[in-house]
């Protein structure tokens, strides 16, 4: 069913980025950043849970949120390839989060008006959280970009590493078109415009630039991932797969 796939794509983005951020808990450079990364991870995993629960309900074959998160393999995960990229250094993590936040705010804003009232409700809740995330990551992009020569160079390197995975966020297929036609899905063209506006404004103020190389890696929405997702899922799903149905 189209709606199930559509919900899983958004849920998987949140689950994977939440897992990536969780890897950093206790490892951030400052206590405040450590608390922030835990909070942001929690928001994403919370959003994923609600989307999985609703996807499971729509699917109607008895898969709950745990089954959807923990018992699907790499080829069945439908997140965009950006969110599975490794944390790298702090600038890499912030670049990934910044691009993702710049996408999520307009996405959730659009979905708050979805004809599907459950999805609209989840999005209306999530957009408020996403705006705090975007403020946080944008402030760090500006601070590192406008900081020392070293911080600027590393921020630019982080942007260069993450940018080739951003176009995957905006790939629309028949599912998007079908659901957009009935007012359920977001119009990704509009989301992309808002994304570009925010990225350009932030980079201009921080003296940062986008890479000139046009290469973009696509395929996440169809389950074709980079080498990193399999490793992430192996760790995340290990307990559930060893003890199916375990509750903790």
């Amino acid at each position, binding site marked *: 069913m189209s709606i199930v796939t559509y919900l899983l794509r958004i849920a998987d983005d949140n689950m994977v980025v939440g897992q990536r951020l969780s890897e950093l808990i206790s490892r951030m450079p400052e206590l405040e950043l450590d608390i922030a990364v835990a909070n942001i991870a929690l928001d994403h995993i*919370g*959003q994923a849970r609600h989307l999985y629960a609703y996807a499971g309900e729509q699917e109607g074959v008895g898969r709950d949120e745990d089954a959807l998160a923990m018992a699907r393999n790499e080829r069945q995960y439908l997140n965009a390839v950006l969110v599975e990229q490794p944390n790298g250094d702090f600038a890499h993590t912030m670049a990934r989060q910044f691009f993702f936040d710049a996408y999520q705010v307009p996405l959730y804003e659009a979905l708050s008006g979805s004809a599907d009232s459950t999805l609209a409700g989840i999005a209306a809740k999530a957009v408020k959280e996403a705006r705090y995330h975007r403020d946080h990551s944008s402030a760090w992009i500006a601070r590192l970009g406008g900081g020392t020569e070293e911080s600027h160079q590393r921020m630019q390197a982080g942007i260069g590493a993450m940018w080739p995975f951003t176009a995957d966020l905006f790939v629309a297929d028949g599912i998007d078109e079908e659901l957009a036609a009935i007012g359920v899905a977001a119009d990704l063209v509009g989301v992309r415009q808002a994304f570009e506006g925010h990225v350009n404004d932030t980079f201009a103020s921080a003296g940062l630039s986008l890479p000139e190389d046009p290469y973009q890696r696509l395929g996440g929405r169809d389950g074709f991932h980079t080498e990193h997702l399999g490793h992430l899922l192996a760790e995340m799903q290990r307990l559930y797969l060893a003890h199916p149905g375990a509750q903790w």
Partner: protein
Amino acid sequence: MSDLNLDRLRQQLGEVADPEIPVVSIADLGVLRAVEVHGDQLTITITPTYSGCPAMEHIADRVKMIGESHGFATTVNTVFEPAWTSDWMTETARQALEQYGIAPPRTIGEVAVELAPLRCPRCHSPNLAKITDFGSTACKALYRCESCLEPFDHFKEI
């Protein structure tokens, strides 16, 4: 069930405290949305403050237990629409937060206007520095008062 007992049930449900901020109740927070009785069936509707709020499961368990202790077959529904806003918090809750040392959320309102100035919950000074937007729980930011130098939590506007 008599009206008197029903009132008592509603009151007990409303008094359930937020496990992370025990000075405010779920009724004063605006987390408890509805209590409906049909025969021996009780339906309690709650809404999360944040998508990932870990207190929600505890709150759901608590209200279910209270409903069942009154002899009802109790269902707890979690709804997202309309999305919870800090504007739903009652004046009682705001005062309780400030006394507890947490600067309460300011009113956002329907139209975008500038928020009222924040003040230190201890000395009421408006001379503050934000340390981080993400504090000890999802709903709080961390500030420091530049007058009395005490750090404090601020329940964020959302």
